[in-house]
């Protein structure tokens, strides 16, 4: 079946611009996660949605970052006034609900490589 889909695969933009990154989770997965992976590092948690609501946004680095999931399926990560330090691979993952989110494995997409010039 179809996995987690992320678009675009690559995005290059200039410093100061606004970007949107899209994640289409596996059908039926109500939990959705965003991670950021800087070069040579492991992924770092940004935000977690259960359905339409953000259950944990403690990883968002500042108020330039925002994410939505209005219908409980597709999610968009939005970054305002981009900075060169925002350059990274942004990974999305989804999972089915269970007793304790970590009981269910998170399925990852291929990520969006964001480059800020």
């Amino acid at each position, binding site marked *: 079946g179809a*996995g987690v889909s992320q678009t675009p695969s690559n995005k290059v933009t200039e410093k100061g611009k606004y970007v949107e990154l899209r994640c289409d989770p596996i059908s039926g997965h109500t*939990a959705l*996660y965003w*991670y950021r992976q800087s070069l*040579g*590092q*492991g*992924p*770092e*948690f940004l935000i*977690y949605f*259960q359905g339409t609501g953000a*259950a*944990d946004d*403690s*990883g968002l680095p500042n108020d330039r970052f925002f994410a939505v999931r209005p219908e409980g399926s597709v999610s968009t990560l939005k970054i305002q006034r981009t900075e060169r330090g925002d350059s990274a*691979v942004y*990974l999305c*993952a989804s999972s089915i609900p269970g007793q*304790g*989110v*970590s*009981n269910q*494995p*998170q399925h*990852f*997409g*291929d*990520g969006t*490589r964001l480059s800020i010039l």
Partner: protein
Amino acid sequence: AQTVTQSQPEMSVQEAETVTLSCTYDTSENNYYLFWYKQPPSRQMILVIRQEAYKQQNATENRFSVNFQKAAKSFSLKISDSQLGDTAMYFCAFAYSSASKIIFGSGTRLSIRP
């Protein structure tokens, strides 16, 4: 705060050999999950193996097995009969049983030589 440490940035072994990747973690909790993820150049994170902290028996998945030492907070991955397709970044990761996020280590780049 919870941390995951992988002290081997890179490793290289010959095809068919056995290789062990090291991982240590820090937590004050008693219930949690540990994972090893594989990330090939395609960037997709693939779950290799998972261990529940309350289980004493080490998890195994075909050629992949772990050595889980709870008291020492150590969680190493052993790959037996390594194959060229095992070449990838390997991330050790930690999550609480009831938490939402996964905490990843910095990774080990594994190369399998023909």
